């Protein structure tokens, strides 16, 4: 499916998705409540068949925290980027997609560890790199650590 058809398809499924200009990928911001249902349909419907989640990142945009999903279909070769936002910096949470794309399990643990975004229904949400009891989430822009981060 080409990007124009795909864009119409996504907007048909989630009318309040926000389209973002991006040179490389077709990009949408999805309301958090609709992300899990949309993901299920993206993977299961044969004309889209997004079966390969090749990157999952957490981003701190200061005004809000964002999870970015890079998706590809191995049959149709089309790609898509979805973003989910939360503006709660303390208890911000989005739904997990690790029941749909299994690779997300570790990626989401990494995002939780370093960016502090929680994932609802994740089977084992613990810190991945840092030890339990670490204070703060290092990839956030407001993270200050005078001991472990050496300023040059």
């Amino acid at each position, binding site marked *: 499916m080409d990007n124009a058809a795909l864009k119409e398809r996504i907007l048909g499924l989630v009318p309040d998705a926000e389209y973002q200009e*991006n*040179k*490389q990928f077709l990009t949408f911001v999805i309301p958090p409540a609709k992300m899990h249902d949309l993901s299920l349909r993206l993977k299961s419907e044969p004309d889209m068949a997004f079966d*390969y989640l*090749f*990157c999952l990142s957490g981003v701190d945009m200061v005004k809000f925290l964002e999870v*970015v999903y890079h998706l590809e279909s191995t049959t149709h070769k089309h790609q898509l980027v979805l973003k989910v936002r939360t503006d709660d910096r303390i208890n911000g949470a989005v739904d997990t997609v690790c029941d749909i794309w*299994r690779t997300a399990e*570790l990626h989401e643990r990494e995002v939780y560890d370093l960016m502090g975004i929680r994932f609802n229904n994740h089977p084992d949400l613990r810190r991945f*790199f840092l030890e339990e009891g670490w204070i703060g989430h290092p990839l956030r822009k407001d993270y200050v650590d005078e001991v472990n981060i050496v300023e040059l």
Partner: protein
Amino acid sequence: MKEVINLPVKNVEEEEYHINMGPQHPSTHGVLRLVVSLQGEIVKSLKPHCGYIHRGIEKMCEKDTYPQIIHLTDRMDYLSAHINNHAVCLLVEKALEVEVPERVKYIRTIIDELNRIASHQLWWCSFGMDMGGLTCYFYGLRDREKILDIFEESFGSRLLHSSYTPGGLMMDIHPDFQKNVKAFIKYFRKKIRDYDDLLTGNMIMQMRTKGVGLLSKEDAISYGVTGPSGRASGFSCDVRKHHPYGVYDKVDFREILGTKGDTFERYMMRMNEMHESMRIIEQLIDNIPAGDYSAKMKAVLKLPAGEYYQRVEASRGELGVYCISDGNKTPYRMKFRSPNFSNLSALDHISRGVKIADLVAIGGSLDYVIPDIDR
């Protein structure tokens, strides 16, 4: 007469217990800890514990300029250092819309493939060693030295080169580069037969790997297992084929796909890839065009505000670089999608139900480099 005491015999088969494999276990090839739940000898499940070598490279990138970031990427997957450099260079060139000279593309492709062979040689060494064949280690390292010598001659260092810069190369190749590469290919074509004689055809090795650690194609895609490990399961994931960069679109090479997805196939994928890499180098080595070794670049590189993503085929799978720029000379956010990280996520699934000794073989066939997982 001594009294015989009958101790109550415990049925260990029924009891589940945990052991730590690592962080200092030789088969994890680095500091990775696997907490394995066992019932007798059978693996019930395992949980990886990472972070022993986490340096926060993504956070460091936010303070560094793009040419500086290249030096950090070497330290992720140090066995495919050149290919990691290539990813960042391509990302910057794409963002600035710089056209690099043809000569640079040819040289980069050749060096990437040499790097891939060197990486697979070291994998072969350690895989043989994991299976108990220590001789493999000496054979593999002997041949890998020849490639490192070529790198040293041209770029002055053997492991972490950082010889790619945005726009081209740090320096031109040595005048003897072509001659030495051709000599190496001739040498290695002969020596790789020894590899097959020593390990591939070995009955013990085959019995320990065939049918062990199965990963289906659907699971490989779902877990994001890429590179030779993913292709062994039949997942066509070669970035060089699907999203060509360098001069991969001009050379003829096969993307070899497996069907079974067991440990032996993952082994064979890498053996076959070494042959394919040599074929790629042979097609390019005599045709390196003359010209500059770098495009004209500004002294300070500022990427236009926006998002960029670049994929390359590292020796262990797909490496992705996701960069958000706000127009400054340092990125706003840099994320590396490292192949080993995703490959590790499948380990629990693959190794359920196998014997603990097979876990070593499976781990070897997935070919971890721990600094790439931890970053």
